[in-house]
């Protein structure tokens, strides 16, 4: 598989949320090359060019990471901590995606350096709108980190 020029790394364990999010991004005109991984371990492999991603160039960094918070094994919080404590990765904007605004994780996310925090709305109109806005904001409006 070609992992060249991937601009969005999308970390999401729910296939449904992933499908809906990807569709929303495309519908919203965010056509940047996206790679979807299904857990935290894969996300770290991708970023550190390990395992399946050993052939990926370690000089290329995604422009945006969409990171689900609640995932089995390595949680979004752990991935975030790893990214933000790595001098090579910490300038990549990370948008946390989560199903709820409950729980103690919101503060933790910002303390660890998350750039944004999005509660996935149940209503699909809102959901599409939110995802589209995330993509546009971080890929078009913000200055690229690299």
């Amino acid at each position, binding site marked *: 598989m070609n992992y060249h020029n991937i601009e969005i790394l999308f970390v999401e364990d*729910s296939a*449904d949320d992933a499908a809906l999010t990807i569709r929303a991004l495309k519908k919203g005109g965010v056509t940047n090359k996206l790679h979807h991984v299904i857990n935290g371990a894969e996300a770290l492999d991708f970023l550190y060019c390990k395992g399946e991603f050993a052939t990926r160039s370690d000089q290329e960094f995604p422009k945006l990471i969409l990171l689900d918070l609640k995932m089995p094994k390595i949680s979004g919080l752990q991935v975030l901590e790893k990214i933000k404590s790595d001098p090579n990765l910490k300038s990549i904007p990370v948008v946390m995606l989560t*199903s*709820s605004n*409950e729980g103690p994780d919101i503060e933790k996310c910002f303390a660890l350096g998350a750039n944004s925090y999005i509660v*996935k*709305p*149940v209503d*699909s109109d809102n*959901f599409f709108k939110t995802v589209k806005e995330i993509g546009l904001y971080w890929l078009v409006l913000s200055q690229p980190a690299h």
Partner: protein
Amino acid sequence: MKKDDSDELIIANKKIAFQHQEKENRAAELIIANKELLFLNEEKEKRAEELAIANKELLFQNAEKENRAAELVIANKELAFQNEEKEKRAKELITANRELKKAEDEVRQLNDELEQKVAERTAQLESVNKELESFSYSVSHDLRAPIRAINGYTKILVEDYEAVIDEDGLKILQSIINNSKKMGELIDDLLAFSKLGRKQVTVSNIDMLDLVDQVKEEVLLEGHENRPEFNITELPNAKGDKSLIKQVWINLISNAIKYSRHKEKTAIEIGAYEEDDHIVYFVKDGGAGFDMQYYDKLFGVFQRLHSQEEFEGTGIGLAIVHRIVQRHQGKVWAESTLDEGSCFYFSLLNVNH
């Protein structure tokens, strides 16, 4: 007579005369002596009388002394008795003190035990609270996810497959979208409601007029068909958790606006009055009102007195108001006439209380 004889007689006479003289002298002396004796006797009698009086006096004094001595003996006995009593009392006091000390120790021990129990109970409650929190978290995360998928996929069907689904099918899909959206709102409301029960109430003096003004401005920002007209009279300050009481005002004022929607204008009256150590605030509208017959359902969770078509909502707003006011040891109640309007009241502790 012979001379000699006469001489002798003269001499003898002289002798007799002398003797007489002597006798007379002696008699006079005796008289004097007698007189003196008499006088001495008199003196002796006087003295004896005085002595008798002195004796009597002495006797009396002795008797007095004896009396006094007897009294002293009695007083001594009394004193001894009192000393004994004092000792007894002192012993009793020592015993009482000892008992007091023991009682204090027991109280202290009981307090310690109580504190420990409270600490244990608090720890239990905290752990239950944590469980509840993680339960709420799971509910909100795990229940929302599938509903989001249902809503999202249905939306895709409507958008991408419109051409191959007939009108009835599209109506059904729209119902699925509406219902799943509604369920999402219910879950969010339920969570917000359960969060309230766990939220710490931080009491401060609330500048009520300022708070209501804030809420009014926020509500007006939302934009409404009939711009609401507010008539706010003086609002005394009260004690409460500012963010929670703000929520009460938001819910009551939003309701007043919502249920006035079908009226020509939206007039909202906000005021307060003092009652005992409480302040009663009220929000009055001229909206749809409700039938007092169903009053007992008014503040229930997810209870609604109007249809979704008439007025949208999940039925959580007044339940939240009720829960918040209850957590402030206040009361909430309402009066209404169907089609004429409602007045909602809630009471909070006066700041001077």
